[in-house]
């Protein structure tokens, strides 16, 4: 709760929110170049209102976001790490504004894909989840990467990042159960394969539960990997069946990544002493190829469903 004092309101347009609006929550730092496509992508999906927490950007993204008619914006100069990677800030906003709404919590480089997303808006999914008495929806992170060097094709503002980073690993994920929070812990993909091949236990977690019918008693525990109360983490079936799930296409690995990794390493604001960024910096010196002969080229959600990365469950 004390974290809310770290947040300074920039623009509050929450009075525009209608009772059944779908809300999006996001923290961002210097992501100006990504924002136009990000906003466009989620507006088309049917998000009614965006909540941004800006973590001390200096690239003009603050002003850009403040100008958007469907964005409410807060600013903070406090530590990203000490706010448990932004969730404390967002939890506070969610408690205050998201109660009774479906809330999608994503980063500026995460793009939600769900079953039938090419023909049905997000509201079709949330209506179905409501009708099925399901309160949380899983979407694992799928790291996307380009073929060739990361800086080979520069990303332009407004461009679909998946035009460049259109490759992914389809079948090298490992899962274990976290008994304390009952969530699954998923690792693998290109980051485990290339950056953490010698210490896979340190590879980043890929499980996420980004879409939740919010209640003011709920809270994200660590990023959007797990929630409280624990029942919200039960997004998987344990008796052989498949629950419906989606994927967060993670367009982190663009030409902007080198600079970002360097900056984040200097700030030391990431998980476990930024071990991830240390590993990246180490390997980036050798100019790694994330792409390999067995990389899969992204087509659509149906492809991800067939590959078993997501499921329609009983939504038809």
């Amino acid at each position, binding site marked *: 709760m004390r974290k809310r004092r770290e947040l300074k309101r920039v623009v509050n347009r929450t009075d525009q929110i209608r009772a059944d609006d779908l809300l999006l929550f996001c923290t961002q730092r210097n992501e100006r170049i990504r924002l136009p496509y990000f906003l466009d992508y989620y507006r088309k999906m049917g998000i009614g209102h965006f909540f941004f927490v800006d973590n001390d950007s200096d690239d003009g993204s603050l002003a850009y976001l403040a100008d958007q008619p469907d964005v409410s914006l807060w600013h903070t100069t406090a530590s990203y790490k000490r706010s448990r990677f932004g969730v404390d800030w967002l939890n506070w906003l969610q408690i205050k504004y998201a109660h009774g709404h479906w809330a999608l919590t994503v980063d500026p480089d995460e793009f939600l894909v769900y079953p039938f997303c090419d023909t049905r808006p997000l509201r079709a999914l949330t209506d179905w989840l409501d009708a099925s008495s399901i309160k949380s929806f899983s979407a*694992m992170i799928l790291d996307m990467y380009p073929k060739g060097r990361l800086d080979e094709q520069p990303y332009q503002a407004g461009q679909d990042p998946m035009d460049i980073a259109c490759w992914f690993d389809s*079948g090298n994920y490992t899962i274990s*159960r976290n008994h304390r929070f009952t969530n699954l812990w998923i690792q693998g993909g290109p980051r485990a394969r290339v950056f953490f*091949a010698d210490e896979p236990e340190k590879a980043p977690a890929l499980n996420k539960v980004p879409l939740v019918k919010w209640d003011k008693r709920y809270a994200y525990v660590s990023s959007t990997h797990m929630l409280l109360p624990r029942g919200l983490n039960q997004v998987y079936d344990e008796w*052989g069946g*498949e629950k419906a799930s989606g994927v967060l296409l993670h367009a982190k690995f663009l030409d902007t990544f080198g600079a970002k990794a360097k900056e984040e390493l200097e700030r030391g604001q990431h998980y476990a002493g930024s071990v991830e960024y240390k590993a990246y910096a180490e390997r980036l010196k050798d100019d790694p190829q994330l792409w390999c002969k067995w990389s899969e080229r992204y087509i659509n959600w149906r492809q991800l469903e067939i590959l078993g990365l997501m499921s329609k469950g*009983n939504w038809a």
Partner: protein
Amino acid sequence: MTVGIVMLVHTALGRAEQVARHWSAAGCPVVIHVDKVVPRKTYNAFVAALSDLSEVRFCGRYRCEWGTWGIVEATQSASEMMLAHYPSVRHVYLASGSCLPLRPVQELIDYLDERPNTDFIESATTSEVPWTVGGLDEERFTLRFPVSWKRHRHLFDFFVNIQRKLGMSRKMPNGILPHMGSQWWCLSRRTLSAILQDPERPTYDRFFSQVWIPDESYFQTLTRQYSENIESRSLTLSKFDFQGKPHIFYDDHLQLLRRSDCFVARKIWPYADRLYEAFLTDAAGAMKRTEPNPGKIDRIFSKAVERRTRGRSGLYMQSRFPNEDWENGVTAAPYSMFQGFSELFENFEPWLAAATGARVHGHIFAKDRVHYADGQTAINGALSDSPVLRDYNAKAFLTNLIWNTRGERQCFQFGPDDNQEINWRIAKDPNAQVSVITGAWAVPLFRSNLDFAAIRAIAARLQKIESEHMDVLRSPYTKARVRIWTMAEFIEAPMEPLQGILDEIGRTKLRRLSEAPKMVDLSGFGQFLQNLKNQGMHPYLMGDFPVERGVENMPKTQRKPYLVQ
């Protein structure tokens, strides 16, 4: 003669209005029941919006909570109004606000005109319906249900349990036989009025008002009393999922619905603009005059239920992570594991690949790296050859490998020097075909250049590991197809087991085994084993090897007589 539409409405009133106009435009009188939870203001606006249509009426309002008597009361009241005000109505069609007529209304009218005395209502005895959800079938009728299941689930269960404990039970009034079926029916005036005007109706109403989900049994049961011609099916296409809630139709179902040939479908998502546009305004999109046939849609929805309840075998992912032994198949496809074969035969892997067309890997659980077929550094799914990544979760490695390569038979080598963590997983997997030549791990040692002391230590370790592995494979929990030979047994007559293995893989290119793999030269092997014995290490997994035996290369060559020492 025409058909009257009774519409039960509680949400998406805009869509309900659209559909009511559509029915009305085709000359069908409409009586609408609006759920009492709809606020007065909204209700008045809805009535006002339809006030230009003289053939649309609104009946008294009841609270229609799911699974309760209110829905039947609403239906009764609307039906009575329909029969009283529209004498030209010969059939009454019960629909909801989220129902959508798929075929031109005139076709429905014609269809019913040809069947003037038929009642279309799904009606089956309780013992014959598989679709009850929640474990209540006959007890729906014999117990009482004073509280709402949706709002007071614990109290509901409490009442059910206490009645069961006390052995409470009710009799069916007048000895009627309970029937159940879809809530959505189309009844003839004769049958419907007989139900509504029956002097015994108060008795039935009192009884059914305490039945669980009476909207699926009241008319379904009573129709059996009066109807002369029941066609036990609903004219409304309505699919239910495994929790008993209706599947919803969206824009992308348009083609499917067009081909369904059904008169009416539910439930339609209120924002499915294309569906409403196509079926309510596009007369040219009318379907052919054919008997209703929802079979095509059936498949899609039954597959959805199958996916939700059984899932895809061998898949482990974010929303399917079965508990051990509840996997519906540990792995995605059959595969073969060979132990001792590539030690005993010089060219076993290429030979097997040539003979079966399967993908034949080396020791994929070896300590140094994953030995994929053809020396590849990764395989389908970008599964790496790093032993560290593999050993981080060896079970997931195996299930990933089999999942990623489904459609192509996988074979791999295994041995006591490999990571043994997956032994139980494989043993309990019905997809696994495990063939073991015990003791064959000694062959590379026999041919190696190591110090004998080192060999002795290695042999002791490998024998212990393999022996434990064999205990696993022979355990009663094992579901894999397991075949175990001692080395002595196997080299005695190798052709037969090899043929058996090929037959089991099933894709043999050769009908009979003509070319056998080449066995390594075993001359001196018996002495080698004897030397181990002499050092106090007893190699027993190979079976009985005479000191002088083991010179023959291939079984075709003349066998030497045994020497008994």
